[in-house]
């Protein structure tokens, strides 16, 4: 097996009395895209800072491309890492091209490289304008261009699609897919967003500095064992009269079916002549996420009661 690009082993980090991360384990392979989910204060940014080497872990080992990122000798490898921080305000009085050229030079790249990146993210037309005239979406694109400097082997993106319109979001995801085929590993740090699941290989859900779940979406969905929603049309209330289906009907008139009964119910429905359409929806990422959050809440509560 190849050595992972990022490896966290039993990593913990405290800020004074606050435990920001505790016993985190993660291996990120080359060309893998990981979705890192959790709400504000869950420890997402702390984890990114640890991987970037801006802060050091209190316990455990952080290894990035075979080195400790907080060590001085690992600095040259930072040119191969791209980071998009959340809510970054670039130098307002500079033009987009000036900002990107500055950052490109710091990574040993040229002005023409900066120009090419501005074209790639679609703001080349505004590169001669001051950043203060940019819209939220344009600033976000500039930030992305900044993260893409030097064809990084590892990309850490904090809320990359905030402020992007649907078109730009689609373009962004296609850039991620493209980078992935070039062998770039990506950590997408985000609140759960619709559409993100097709672009990530694995998801990691954290809360309160602890890992709640880590695996492919299919694995997480299977482990959560969330029911499938089935929405048949054309049955005209026959559902409630059917002895087999009756128990699955929910308040909206749809069927909520556990994974193991899904096929049985579908066959039963398809046998009905009056059925003219059917929609089957597996639990989406958001529901999986909610499930894991709710589960920890429950264990916390039971612990408190005990």
């Amino acid at each position: 097996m190849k050595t992972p690009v990022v490896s966290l082993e039993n990593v913990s980090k405290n800020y004074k009395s606050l435990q920001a991360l505790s016993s985190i384990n993660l291996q990120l392979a080359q060309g893998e895209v990981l979705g890192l989910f959790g709400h504000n204060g869950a420890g997402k940014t702390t984890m990114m800072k640890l991987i970037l080497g801006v802060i050091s872990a209190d316990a455990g080992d952080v290894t990035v491309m075979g080195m400790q990122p907080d060590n001085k000798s690992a600095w040259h490898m930072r040119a191969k890492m791209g980071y998009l921080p959340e809510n970054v305000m670039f130098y307002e009085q500079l033009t987009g091209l000036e900002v990107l050229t500055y950052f490109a030079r710091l990574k040993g790249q040229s002005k023409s490289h900066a120009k090419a990146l501005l074209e790639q993210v679609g703001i080349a037309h505004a590169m001669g304008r001051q950043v203060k005239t940019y819209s939220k979406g344009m600033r976000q694109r500039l930030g992305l261009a900044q993260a893409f400097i030097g064809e990084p082997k590892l990309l850490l993106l904090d809320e990359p699609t905030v402020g992007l319109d649907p078109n730009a979001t689609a373009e962004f995801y296609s850039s991620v897919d493209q980078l992935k085929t070039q062998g770039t590993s990506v950590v997408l740090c985000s609140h759960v967003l619709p559409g993100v699941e097709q672009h990530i290989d694995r998801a990691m859900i954290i809360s309160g500095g602890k890992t709640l779940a880590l695996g492919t979406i299919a694995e997480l969905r299977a482990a959560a064992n969330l029911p499938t929603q089935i929405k048949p049309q054309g049955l005209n209330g026959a559902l409630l009269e059917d002895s087999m289906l009756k128990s699955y009907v929910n308040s909206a008139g749809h069927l909520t079916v556990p994974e193991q009964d899904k096929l049985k119910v579908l066959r039963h429905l398809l046998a009905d002549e009056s059925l003219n359409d059917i929609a089957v929806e597996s639990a989406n990422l958001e529901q999986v996420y909610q499930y894991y959050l709710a589960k920890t809440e429950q264990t916390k509560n039971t612990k408190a009661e005990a």
Partner: protein
Amino acid sequence: MREILTVANKEFQDGLRNRWLLSITLIFAVLSVGLTYFGAAASGAVGTTSLSTTIASLASLAVFLIPLIALLLSYDSFVGEQEGGTLLLLLTYPLSKNQLLLGKFLGQGGIIALATVLGFGSSALLLFIQNSDIAILQTFGYFILSATLLGLSFTAIAYMISLVASEKSKAAGVALITWFFFALVFDLALLALLVGAETGLSQTALTQLMMLNPADIFRLVNLAGLDSSDVNGALAIAIKANLTQSQLLMLLLGWVAAPLAIASIIFKNKKL
């Protein structure tokens, strides 16, 4: 080195863009040319005044202005980037904290140094063309060198403030207090000590105390070589102490290096 120069270049360009270089140069030029030609107006005459009077008046004005300008230019250098989020971003680049600090210092220090040379140099040149006395260039040379060092010293002090402060507005407040302390309070306190101390303060002790203030060292550098009839107050006594101009300049250089070193230590321990 490439990293330091990249940062320095950006900071220098910022100084040009924000018209800092232009306005500081203009202030210094107007001041020095004005004092050179009209310094004697108070005594009823217009025309160039004596070199020592000119330098004495220039020094006593510059000692207020230069620290204020340097603090204004640099107080938000780090805290501003911290608020914007670019400081964290820069530190994820292949760029050490010291390289960032030195780069900023080179860039912003370059603005101050260039403005000092151009601004005060212009009147030195004017005087020299009129009188063609080599002593003018020498005296102004010391003045410009010490003024630059004074500016750099307060740039480094501004970095300390900028690295400690958590907000831009707080940094501005602290910078103002710092200026007030070094430019005014310190000398008043010295005077009070001089007058109030029963046994009287020895000349050496007084001079040693003055070494604790870069602004006072600057004054001493420029007044030491002059006719002491143009100088009065606590300074006149201190001047008689036997420190050479080059020793004083070395001390001023120490006042550049020390705050810079402290800023580096603060930066190293700064939480992000």
